[in-house]
């Protein structure tokens, strides 16, 4: 658990954490630029980048046409000649359009050149608005399978801020996945000069001894709530937030599974061929003899995301689903 007890904190919405990280890093290093559709004058479709253009000017905060391939190319080429670009791909789904630039270009640049490529691609994933099947998908597992790319997917505001700052300082391309459904959720954020959270390190969000929940995105808070509920019944649940999916902190995760002997993986993505599959595979490869029950994946059903919010919400796993999965794994 990130110990923040000695440090003053402030409750921030996740989007504010992002905004602060961008401001701080752009103030610190003038090579940092922000490029994307509607990031400038309008401050982003959800207001995440508001104020930045006025602060840093329109060469460093740049509105682009609807050209996702070139968008990422601006990051790759820009980083190759000395910038430290932050590229915003509005919805994660749109990253598909630029996938060649991400996977074949950015991720392979160092392999052939031996050179740094300090590039962050920020994007927004998951349901949470009435956006529908082409604007709500969770394909984080795809990018996590790419050598040369780092994939960060924070949940709470403090991690989001600290990891974004670390990503901007990182010399490798980082895909930074924000969760739309969390933008307006508040969490305590330490108010220190340099709040950095390291890439590649999982965080135990709650300690427990009976069962491990490995959760991402919106399912972190939901799992914490499930854990709190079950604590009343005497079930002690540990909640692990990997925060980074590539490189994955396999040690922290397997240590927790070994300790508890039971595993639930909770995510917004669908189950097959997903992050949850990888965690289950890790569990059985590394911890088979310690496993007391089959792991359970809590995930969205294998169907498209519908447009109406109530339907989209009915599709995403909720606290109840996590509770049910924990009960199943405890049985």
């Amino acid at each position: 658990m990130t110990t923040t007890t000695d440090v003053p904190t402030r409750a921030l919405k996740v989007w504010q954490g992002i905004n602060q990280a961008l401001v701080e890093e752009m103030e610190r290093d003038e090579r940092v630029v922000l490029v994307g559709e509607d990031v400038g004058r309008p401050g982003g479709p959800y207001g995440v980048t508001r104020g930045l253009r006025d602060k840093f000017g329109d060469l460093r905060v740049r509105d682009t046409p609807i050209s996702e391939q070139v968008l990422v190319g601006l990051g790759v080429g820009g980083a190759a000649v000395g910038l430290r670009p932050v590229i915003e791909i509005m919805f994660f789904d749109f990253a598909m359009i630029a996938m060649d630039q991400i996977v074949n270009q950015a991720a392979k640049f160092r392999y052939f050149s031996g050179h740094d490529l300090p590039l962050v691609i920020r994007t927004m994933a998951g349901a949470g608005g009435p956006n529908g099947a082409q604007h709500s998908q969770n394909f984080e597992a795809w990018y996590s399978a790419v050598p040369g790319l780092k994939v960060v997917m924070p949940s709470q505001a403090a991690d989001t801020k600290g990891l974004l700052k670390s990503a901007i300082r990182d010399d490798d391309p980082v895909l930074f996945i924000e969760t739309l459904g969390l933008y307006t959720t508040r969490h305590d954020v330490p108010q220190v000069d340099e709040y950095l959270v390291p890439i590649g390190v999982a965080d135990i969000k709650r300690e427990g001894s009976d069962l491990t929940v490995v959760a991402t995105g919106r399912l972190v808070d939901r799992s914490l709530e499930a854990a709190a509920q079950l604590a009343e019944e005497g079930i002690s649940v540990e909640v692990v937030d990997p925060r980074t999916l590539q490189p994955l902190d396999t040690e922290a995760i397997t240590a927790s599974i070994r300790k508890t002997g039971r595993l639930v993986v909770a995510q917004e993505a669908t189950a097959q061929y997903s992050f949850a599959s990888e965690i289950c595979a890790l569990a059985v490869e590394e911890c088979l003899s310690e496993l007391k029950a089959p792991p359970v994946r809590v995930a969205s059903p294998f169907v498209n995301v519908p447009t109406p919010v109530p339907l989209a919400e009915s599709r995403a796993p909720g606290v109840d689903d996590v509770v049910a999965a924990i009960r199943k794994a405890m049985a």
Partner: protein
Amino acid sequence: MGTTAGRYRVMRLSRRFEETMHDQFGDGQVPGPLHLSIGQEAVAVGGCAGLRTSDAVISTHRGHHHCLAKGARPDRMMAELLGRTAGYSGGRGGSMHISIPDIGLIGTNGIVGAGLPIATGCAYGFQAQARDDVAVCFFGEGATGTGAFYEAINIAALWKLPLVFVCENNQIVELTPQEVHVAGELWRRGESHGMPGVRVDGNDVDAVADAVGAAVVRARAGDGPTLVEAVTYRWFGHYAGDRAAWRVEEEVQQWRERDPLIRTRAALPAEQADAIDEGIEELIGSALAFAQQSPVAGPEAIFPNHYASAS
């Protein structure tokens, strides 16, 4: 829709359809996004004037007017937008996913630019089957930022596909003005591919019908694609709820005065126009009633139609 009355009728239908949905949105009854095309009706209606059912129309995220102009039923459209089971997608898709292949409405789309490759495919399909049908692809000027647009015009020109590209230039792209997006002149972007291009007043339904109509005739005859830029204006924000507060009010006002409906209505005898309006009110009223009587799509609505066998 060869007559002025016919064109006015569909424009009026589209206008009242969207105003009604806008009201419903205000009442919290639209569970999805609502991209209004109010002010742009002439592009869709003129663009579809020369089409038959077996022709294909490919639309965008802002596509109610295209759907209605191609013959979609307003009642089922409303049901879809209101999230009802009688909607074209059972209420789970909303306005960005309306697809009615039976009437040649291939689909609205949530991905900017994605309709262009699909339109190219429809046109190729017609050509390969030796059908004399034509595809009309509508897209915003924002879509000209996407590479898909140029891949499409290149292949369409090379293969002489029966395809008409209609760029609906409403001078705004989501939250930023056209100047952020488009270098140079849109209507000329096919020239270097050997494709004729033309710019028309997108608020004049007859001008659009003439320009697109000529292109459709050309395409049907096997003489290849045309690029038509229809200059128009979006009255409202990007989506219902977006106040578009950054816009200059005078500009909006000027364009409101150039309302395509007023123009066309003025060309009709007042009585005929009134009769049309009344007919549309009735149609809208019963469409809304139809939609509202249909059950709200429940959680189970998300499951069907992923695969043929399981449908």
